[in-house]
């Protein structure tokens, strides 16, 4: 019996000896270390950029303000009752007596005074009559580091003004409707506008998006037309949002005006007689985020293990039974994650809404799908485009609110997702 024995000449030539290896572990580790440092540096740069952004916003949102009242509030006392204690009727009277007739009528048209709350009317009096005006603002850094200089500057340049440390982000700011005066301006209408718009965005995009994803993943066969559809969806996700705005303007605002303005339902909002409504905005944003939701839902559905589908088919389940009982419940966390991303994108969109016709200045809250509206990003955009510093401070405060709103929505969606995925 002749086994080929190891150690024949050929094999020993092939066999590598210790000297053939260059065990330079140190230099290998060094190369790794250099790469690690590069990656760390990238992370640090990113974090620093984010920090600068947020600090910059906070820096603008707080600081000293020199304020001057156009009409001294003390002169507005009626029968010795100061402004702060006047009732609804007295406030309306003060307002009526201090502003022009047409202006009063316009306010009454937007929302009858009888329906407005006392606080609302008092805010209007302060905004339209007292008209506190900002002479100059300083940012947080200057306010903290150079308060002495600021004091002397105010005393010298604005003798009538009162120097106040202002937090532009405060509960009044969130609760007040929008006005043209920076001191009394608020973002309540914008917050409601954003929430309404997002509601319709989700109502439109979520069911359609998930439905399309299910069709594409579970039912569509690999034909050229389905591949074309898939490619188009992927491409649509990258189309500039302004294009969706133009589409929304053409379709929802113009072509479908009877629907989006509520005419066919007979509930036309008195403030809008056209299609520039919350509904149009919601539909437009819905179309905008639809590809995102479809792609993310497809990913989630694709991530459901094949073994689970096989198990289901293996006991004779139909395609729909498999999809409904196993694929969907197991992909819901992923689908929700995709939806969170989509909402985050929609809530920050400005351009398409400008095109669709978001109002830039309204002082009442949207009350139905057919109301005029404005949204936070629009408000921010409008304020930042104003030359005065105080508007920039307002914009910073609004940005903080927008960020918080985003975080809240995300947190809610994450909680929802964890509840689903943690079931088993």
């Amino acid at each position, binding site marked *: *019996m*002749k*086994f*080929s024995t190891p150690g024949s000449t050929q094999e020993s030539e092939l066999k590598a000896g210790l000297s053939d290896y260059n065990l330079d572990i140190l230099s290998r580790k060094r190369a790794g270390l250099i790469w690690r440092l590069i990656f760390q540096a990238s992370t640090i740069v990113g974090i620093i950029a984010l920090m600068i952004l947020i600090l910059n916003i906070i820096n603008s949102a707080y600081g000293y303000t020199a304020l001057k009242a156009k009409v001294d509030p003390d002169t507005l006392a009626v029968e010795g009752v100061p402004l702060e204690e006047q009732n609804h009727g007295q406030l309306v009277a003060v307002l009526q007596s201090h502003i022009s007739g047409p202006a009063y009528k316009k306010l009454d048209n937007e929302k009858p005074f009888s329906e407005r709350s006392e606080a609302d009317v008092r805010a209007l009096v302060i905004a339209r009559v007292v008209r506190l005006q900002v002479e100059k603002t300083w940012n947080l850094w200057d306010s903290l580091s150079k308060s002495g200089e600021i004091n002397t500057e105010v005393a010298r340049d604005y003798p009538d003004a009162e120097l106040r440390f202002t937090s532009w982000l405060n509960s009044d700011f969130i609760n007040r409707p929008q006005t043209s005066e920076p001191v009394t301006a608020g973002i309540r209408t914008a917050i409601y506008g954003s929430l309404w718009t997002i509601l319709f965005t989700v109502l439109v995009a979520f069911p359609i998006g998930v439905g399309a994803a299910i069709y594409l993943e579970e039912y569509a066969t690999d034909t050229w037309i389905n591949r074309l559809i898939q490619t188009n969806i992927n491409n649509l996700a990258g189309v500039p949002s302004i294009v969706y705005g133009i589409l929304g303007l053409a379709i929802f605002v113009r072509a479908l005006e009877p629907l989006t303005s509520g005419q066919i339902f007979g509930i036309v909002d008195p403030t809008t007689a056209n299609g520039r409504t919350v509904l149009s905005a919601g539909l437009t944003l819905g179309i905008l985020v639809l590809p995102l939701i479809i792609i993310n839902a497809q990913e989630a559905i694709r991530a459901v293990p094949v073994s689970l589908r096989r198990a289901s088919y293996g006991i004779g389940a139909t395609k729909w039974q498999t999809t409904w009982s196993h694929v969907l419940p197991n992909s819901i966390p992923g689908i929700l994650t995709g939806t969170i991303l989509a909402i985050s994108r929609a809530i920050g969109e400005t351009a398409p809404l400008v095109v669709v016709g978001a109002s830039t200045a309204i002082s009442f809250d949207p009350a139905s799908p057919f109301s005029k509206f404005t949204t936070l990003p629009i408000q921010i955009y409008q304020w930042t485009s104003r030359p005065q510093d105080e508007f920039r401070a307002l914009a910073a405060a609004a940005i903080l609110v927008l960020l918080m709103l985003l975080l809240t929505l995300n947190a809610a969606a994450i909680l929802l997702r964890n509840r689903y995925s943690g079931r088993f």
Partner: protein
Amino acid sequence: MMRIYNKKGIQEQRETMARKTFENELQKVKDAVLVLGSMVEQSILDSVAALKKRDLKASERIFEQDKQINQKRFDIENQLMILIATQQPMAHDLRLLASTMEIISELERMGDYAKGIANINLRMGDQPLLKPLIDIPRMAQKGVDMLHRALTAFTKEDVELAKSIPVEDDEVDALYNQVYRELMTFVIQDPKTMERANWLLWVAHNLERVADRVTNICERTVFIATGVMAEIKSTDDEFWERQKKE
């Protein structure tokens, strides 16, 4: 590379690296069986030679050899058990291991026959042989020869060779009959020779059984190689069948 024998006992070389360790172990088992076989052959020849020379010392040595044969058989059996437990033999390997178990048991019995012959020599004490031994050594030589070739057939898994051996059992049977008749003549002439004739008849009987057991080894060899378990018929069997029918 491994060794494979085709059914004609010709070695084939096949390129396979699988189960090299197991192959080596199987080869070791076969080698051990050959060693055991040659020990048995030696023992048979020695026992008959001792009887022929009435050498009691030599017969005592047979007992010692038998102990070694038994020990060797247990060693091989143990080796087989380990292989069955650890290697999960299937098909040919399983047949080889299971049959080897049987073959070593046969060899051990043959060793016992040699011991029996040695025992008879000792029991005979100082009594002379009834007659000079001629056919009995011939029977021993024939049986050992058959055993030797049977073990060759076993290691080579040579079916043709294995099938050709049992026929030769007839020669041993013929010698046995001749010894039997001869001894009967002595007994009839002088009934006092009964005991000494009986001893020699025992010896012849033991040697006849050796040849029978060789047949068993051949049958096992055929089974290992082909998977067919069947008795190989010799004319002896046919004779008995004819007797039964009549």
